[in-house]
């Protein structure tokens, strides 16, 4: 009655698990699918730590019910690099010291990856992402560097 199966294609893999109606997509990813890279920092859409791509668009996974993702495609931080080397954004974040504790990093990286997929350097890519450690200086440098790297690669 209050639960049903939810099938999501996550990072390219189709996963079917039970979910209660009131479970958010963030909780479903973390608990049922054991993808704990997506973090819950506030539960109100203010911090951006839980951002994932839902059918290619960045959303706060704490503000979407898991049942709403049924039949849809989700990309989490774990899916950004595939199995191989780091993405340009991941490398830039490391090299520019754009993370410290790393708790806010997953949502930010998903957002940066989305911006990169649209040609990079999206205006306001940091809007809606809170970081309490870095003061954003390293993050901004990483956004610039990855945009620059992308430009050089084209």
């Amino acid at each position, binding site marked *: *009655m*209050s639960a049903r199966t939810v099938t999501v294609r996550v990072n390219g893999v189709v996963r079917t698990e039970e979910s*209660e*109606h*009131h479970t*958010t997509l963030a*909780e479903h990813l973390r608990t049922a699918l054991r993808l704990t890279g997506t973090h*819950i920092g506030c*539960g*109100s*859409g203010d911090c*951006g730590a839980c*951002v994932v791509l839902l059918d290619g*668009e*960045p*959303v*706060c996974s*704490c*503000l*979407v*019910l898991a*049942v*709403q993702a049924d039949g849809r495609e989700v990309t989490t931080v774990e899916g950004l690099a595939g199995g191989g080397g780091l993405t340009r954004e991941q490398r830039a974040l490391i090299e520019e010291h754009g993370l410290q504790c790393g708790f806010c990093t997953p949502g930010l990286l998903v*957002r940066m990856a989305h911006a990169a997929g649209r040609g990079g350097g999206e205006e*306001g890519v940091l*809007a*809606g992402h809170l970081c309490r450690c870095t003061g954003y200086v390293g993050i901004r440098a990483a956004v610039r560097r990855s945009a620059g790297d992308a430009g050089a690669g084209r």
Partner: protein
Amino acid sequence: MSAVAFDYTAPTTLDGALGALDAPGRTVALLAGGQSLVPLLTSRQVRPDVVVDLNGVAGLAGIGIGADRVRIGAMTRLREVERHRGLAAALPVLASAAAAVAHPHIRVRSTLGGSLCHAAPAAELPAVALALGAQVVLRSARGVRSVPAGRFATGAGTTVRAPDEVVTEIVFPRTGPFTYEFSELCTRGSTGYPVAGVCLGLRADGGLVRAARVVVAGCGPVPVRLPGVEAALVGRAVAGPHPGLVASVVAEATRPGSTGPEDREYRAEVAGVLLVRALAARAGREGR
């Protein structure tokens, strides 16, 4: 951080949705974009028996630009409002106000109807809808009715929507000779929550105000028009000076008998300042 258990249904037709609302003895929450409702659910401030998800209902989203009117489906995402080319030409203020809401990853989900129903006191779109003279269209098994935006919200977070009704669309008159703009002050950065906002509609001629429409948000439970301020602007030079205008905005927005947040005097003053600056910017753009 976990909602009280509820039933969930995701109808695909409006009739299906209306049927799902017919749940005697049970509380029902309508789920639109979810960006305001879901946190209320997970923090247990809203505890419905049933959640009716409108996201799969056909025909509730879309933007139609007509000769006299613009119709926007209630489930149209703010991102669509923000980016729609025809809308940018027909009602640019709506696009710019939508772009001022929260963050991109909120606007991907957030809807125009949801924004009006959530009725946050300082929210952008209810203020703009009021200034533009929009009509909110509601459907129920009993029929259809249309409510002016100014009478839709009854207080902070409350509206005239009956439990069996669904907002289906919002209808905006084309603005004719008026040109509108929206500006606001936020708590921090460009991502903060609005403290106060103002929507100014202006018909000007030869640098003089011929007619004005002024709506302020954040100074009370719902956005309000300021007819006194509007009247006082008529005949003045757009470029100003506007002596006493801020004070008259404060006086009218906080008039005795009205209610609002503790710091409403400050918020009203900010609205007045935003109004004066909007006028100056307009004059500047038009070379006076």
